[in-house]
Structures are given as structure tokens and as C-alpha cells.
């Protein structure tokens, strides 16, 4: 993608400076086109899928509606027109930012989704942070001397953990901490007390203090993310430790911790960053199953809820949001590689 910078032909000064001006924008424009096509495909696909799945008039009117009531509702919402006209109307509204209203509650669909978003971001952030805090030191320790017996044992355990699906971890956590020990609540989510961090007299940032309800969902999600991340960090560290530059540094008398922390780990983390990006993008789709098990009011839970009740506008808004977030996370990951990996930095810029 950045090759356009390297291969810019050496022309007259003027066109060259124009090229230099445009060149950094090319990847951005490419990404934006991708995003627009992506959102278009997602909404179009969903529109027809959802219409195939059910009749919105029936959802609105309920099962015991008379044919007259149904006809009235169809006329009111424009559902009596041909599907293609409905689709064009829908897309027209969408471009103006109108996602329609929830068939279940009547509130604007997008607003409803945006209200759900903080809970999902919270659990994703907590789980990711926990997973990273465990996986990187553990992976570095494992990869530093992978041949030793203790590390082989720990690697084996992590390998088994990798085979434990997230919802199984969640169920076992509930069994132990909520059912047997009665330490933690297993259902629902509370924001806890809000602590206002006053920056100035008039401006303060509300910071929710951790609540007990956060622990089980985020720990079981982190438990699910951690093994694969640890394995990637360990494998990359082990590989980096075999490189020539490590041998040179060792021959130069660098102590073990310098070899690991200064030379091997930064390279290993590069590979880990890619996986962290992928995992975070996955979490943006809402950790559907974890959220459902713990009745966590995030977008994953809402997705199941709305699709099962055929709440078309909310499903559309959810899918739009998820696609957008996944795109953002992927784009940020891709961009951050430019900063993290010196080899990718383009000359001249």
C-alpha cells in the first residue's frame, strides 16, 4: 500500500511535490472506500436476510392482530410497497443517519445501540488488559528457555487452557465463585458508584468505580483470550532468542535479562500486537456468548435479543456499529504497525 511512496517517479519538482502531498492520502482513501463498500454490503445483506426471516408488520402488531390492523400498519410504515422500493427508502434514510425506531420499545434504534456500547467496551477493555498483563510476562518467561522442564509443563497447561471454550470457562467460574462459594454475583451489570474526577471547576470526567459484577465476566473472557496470546508471545520470543543478533549480544557479554527485555521481547511483541488487534476486533462483535451467560447488557447480548424478536431496525444499527468498530480496530492495528515496526516506515516520509 505504501509502495506508491517508494516508486514515485522522479519527475519535475512540481508534480513531485504534488505526489508527495497525495501519497500519504492514498492508503487513507483506499481504506475509506473499503469502509463504504463494507457498510453498504452489510446493510444490504442484512436488509434482505431479515425480510426473508420475518414480516415486520407481524412483529409490530403482535400475533393476534386482525388482517385490517395488519393492513393499517403496513400502510403506515410503507410495508405494502414493493421490497425494492422499501429498500431504497431504507437506504435513503440511512444515508441521512436515520436508522428508524426499535419495533420493541419505540426508541431510536441507533440511540439504543449507542447506550449499549459502553458496557461492551468496558468488558472488552478489562478482559484485554488482564489478558495482556498475564500473557506477555508469562510468554516471555516461557520463550526465554523453552526447553526447560518447568516451562514445558506450563506450556502444556496453557495448551490445554487454549482448548477450553469461553462459555465453558464462564460456566465453571459461575459454578465455583457464584454457586459454591457465593463470593460474586453471576448475573447483570452495574456501573457502580460514579466518581467525578474534577479537572477544572466546571469540567469533570465521570469515572465509574469498579463493581463486583464486572469480575466474573471479564475474568472468564480474559481466560479465553490469554492462552493464545501467551503462546504467540512465547513462540516469537523463542524464535527471536535463536536469532544471530542475540548470539552476538550474548557473545558481547549482555546479561540474560538484557537479552530478553531489550533484544528479544520487542520483536516478539510485534507479532503479539497483530493478535491483540484481531482479538480486540473480535470482541467488538460483542463477546456474544459471555454477555448472554452473564446477562451483561452489551451489544452482543442485544444482538441475540433483537434478532430473536426480529427487531429489524435495532439489528441493522447493531450490525452497522459492529462493522464500523471492527473496521476502526483493524485500521488502528494496521496503522500502529507503521509505528511499531521500523522496517515498515517508508523512507522519505
Amino acid at each position, binding site marked *: 500500500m505504501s509502495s506508491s511512496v517508494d516508486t514515485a517517479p522522479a519527475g519535475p519538482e512540481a508534480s513531485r511535490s504534488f505526489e508527495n502531498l497525495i501519497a500519504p492520502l492514498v492508503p487513507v482513501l483506499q481504506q475509506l472506500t473499503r469502509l463504504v463498500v463494507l457498510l453498504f454490503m452489510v446493510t444490504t445483506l442484512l436488509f434482505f436476510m431479515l425480510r426473508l426471516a420475518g414480516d415486520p408488520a407481524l412483529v409490530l402488531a403482535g400475533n393476534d392482530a386482525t388482517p385490517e390492523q395488519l393492513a393499517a400498519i403496513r400502510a403506515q410504515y410503507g410495508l405494502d410497497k414493493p421490497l425494492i422500493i422499501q429498500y431504497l427508502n431504507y437506504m435513503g434514510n440511512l444515508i441521512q443517519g436515520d436508522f428508524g425506531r426499535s419495533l420493541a420499545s419505540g426508541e431510536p434504534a441507533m440511540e439504543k445501540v449507542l447506550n449499549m456500547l459502553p458496557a461492551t467496551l468496558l468488558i472488552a477493555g478489562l478482559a484485554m488488559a488482564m489478558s495482556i498483563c498475564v500473557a506477555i510476562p508469562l510468554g516471555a518467561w516461557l520463550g526465554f528457555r523453552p526447553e526447560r522442564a518447568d516451562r514445558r509443563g506450563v506450556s502444556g497447561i496453557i495448551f490445554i487452557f487454549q482448548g477450553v471454550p469461553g462459555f*465453558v470457562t464462564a460456566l465453571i467460574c459461575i459454578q465455583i465463585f457464584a454457586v459454591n462459594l457465593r463470593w460474586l454475583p453471576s448475573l447483570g451489570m452495574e456501573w457502580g458508584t460514579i466518581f467525578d474526577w474534577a479537572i477544572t471547576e466546571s469540567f469533570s470526567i465521570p469515572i465509574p468505580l469498579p463493581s463486583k459484577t464486572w469480575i466474573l465476566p471479564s475474568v472468564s473472557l480474559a481466560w479465553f483470550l490469554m492462552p493464545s496470546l501467551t503462546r504467540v508471545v512465547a513462540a516469537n520470543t523463542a524464535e527471536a532468542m535463536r536469532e544471530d543478533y542475540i548470539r552476538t549480544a550474548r557473545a558481547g557479554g549482555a546479561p540474560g535479562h538484557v537479552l530478553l527485555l531489550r533484544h528479544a521481547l520487542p520483536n516478539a511483541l510485534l507479532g503479539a500486537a497483530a493478535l491483540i488487534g484481531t482479538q480486540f476486533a473480535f470482541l467488538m462483535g460483542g463477546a456474544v*456468548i459471555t454477555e448472554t451467560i452473564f446477562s451483561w447488557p452489551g451489544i452482543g447480548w442485544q444482538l441475540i435479543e433483537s434478532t430473536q424478536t426480529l427487531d429489524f431496525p435495532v439489528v441493522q444499527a447493531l450490525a452497522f456499529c459492529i462493522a464500523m468498530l471492527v473496521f476502526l480496530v483493524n485500521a488502528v492495528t494496521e496503522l500502529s504497525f507503521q509505528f511499531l515496526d521500523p522496517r515498515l516506515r517508508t523512507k522519505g516520509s
Partner: protein
Amino acid sequence: MSEVKVSQVGGLLGGSEGKTFSWSKVRQVANPEIVIAFTLFTVLMILAVFGQFLMTHDPMQGDLLKRFTPPGQEGYILGSDHLGRDLWSRMVEGLQWSMACALLANIINLAIGSTLGLLAAEKPGMLRTVINQLVYTLQAFPALVILICVVVVVGQGFWTLVFTLGLLAWVVYMRVVYAEASSLFQREYVQAARLAGVSRWSIMFQHVLPGVRASLFVIFAFHFAGLLIAESALSFLGLGAPLGEPTWGNLLAESRQYMMRAPWMLLVPAGSIVTAVVTMNLVGDGIASLSRKQGRGMEA
């Protein structure tokens, strides 16, 4: 017995079965992990194929007088559930269901993913752009919505699950085939085949695809594990197997109400899922290390 299997897979990878077989070679490749992997794999396969003969009870028939029997008592190897049904037999039945579902979905994924990967890798152009955009969309698309829609329209069932998973989860194959085949299409032997007038499809499937075979075996194993998880997770949510069908996901869902009384109802299906997934991951690792060794052997 498991060692024979190792040599067979080694043979599959190298395409030189039989003539180079020797026990010293088997001993060379059979590290403990591979032996464990293929032992477990053999056990799983035996349960999947001959499960009908290994069940001790009818998985659907309960004895209400023997509800919540702990494991190992009154002839129930793994205990009984809330309706007095034998958990061992239900576990075996679930294994057959999940294995068949994951296997079929995996084959569909393999076919779609590698075909699209090859098409995208062949040459730059419209087709490549369209396929890449499709992959991109699928990654950002909440696939669960599609599944729920399909379930609403045609109802839950084995084939619903096989085809939705089969049609939606092929991205991993496409990406790997695309990445590896792109460089293979530049090789001289492909150019030569092209000049010799070999047809486009024949170049793709007979000349390039064999070059990525080793990677496909590895993904097949790992993806199988992933599909097992997906299948049980969806059944657990009530979107996969029909209610009442004793799949692992359904067993887990049933266990939720009886966690206090009968923790084994949770532990049996949970343990089965973990064992199956770990086995398939081990098999994937094993094949990967075998093919690495073979690659090194050829270079030397």
C-alpha cells in the same frame, strides 16, 4: 498402533507412502506429543464410528427413579442427569453429532476457501478485489445474525448448522491459500505449464493446490477444533442442535439448572469439549511439526 498412524500421515504429506516406510523413521518423527495426539485422535475416532456399540444405555431413555446418580454408581459410568438418563451414552451420542457437523462444515469451508483463495491468488484484477472485499465483509459481519435468521426461517437442525457454518467460516482457508499460492503462481513450473497449454483450472487445482497441501492439513485440524467450539456454543445458546438432541452444547445448557445438585452434569460435557478441542489442536501441531521436519529432510 498410534505409531502406524503417524507414518500414514507423514506419508500423506509427502505423498511417498509405502516405499520409504521403516520403523527407525517412525521413531525419528514420533515425539511424545505426536504419540499422545494420535492416541487421543484414535480414541475419538473409535467413539465417533463405533459409538453405537459402546453405549451402555439408550441415550434418550431415562429412569426417573435413578435421577442424579453420581458417576460410577449403579452402572452409570459418568452418572445420570435430571431425567435419569445415562450421561456416558449421551456424551457419545453428542460426540457423533458434533463430529459429523464439524467434519462436514469443515469440508465445505475447505472447498470454498481454497477455491476462492486460488482464484484471488491467480492474478490481480477484478476477481481478486471482489474476493478480498467479500472476506473483509465477512470478518466484520456478525455471522450470528445470519444464523439466527436461517434458524427462524428453516428451523434448527443438523443441516442448517452444517450449511451456515460451512458457508460462513471459510475465511481462514482463503487467507492461507491466498498467501501461499500467490508466490506459487510466480514459480517457473507454473509458467511452464501455462506455456504448455495446461488449462487454467488444471493449473490451479493440479499444480498449485498440491503446493499448499501441508498447510491445508494443519488448518483442517485447527479449524476442526474451532468448529467443534462453535457448534457447541451455538447449541448452548439454543441456536444449533434441536432441543432434546443430546449434543455437548445442549448437555451444558441442561446442566445449568442443576449445578448445585449434580456438578458432573456440567463437568462431563465440558470435559468432552475440552478433550476433543485439545486433541484436534495437538493433531494440528503434530502435522505442522511433521511437515516442517519433512521439509527440512527434503532440503538436506
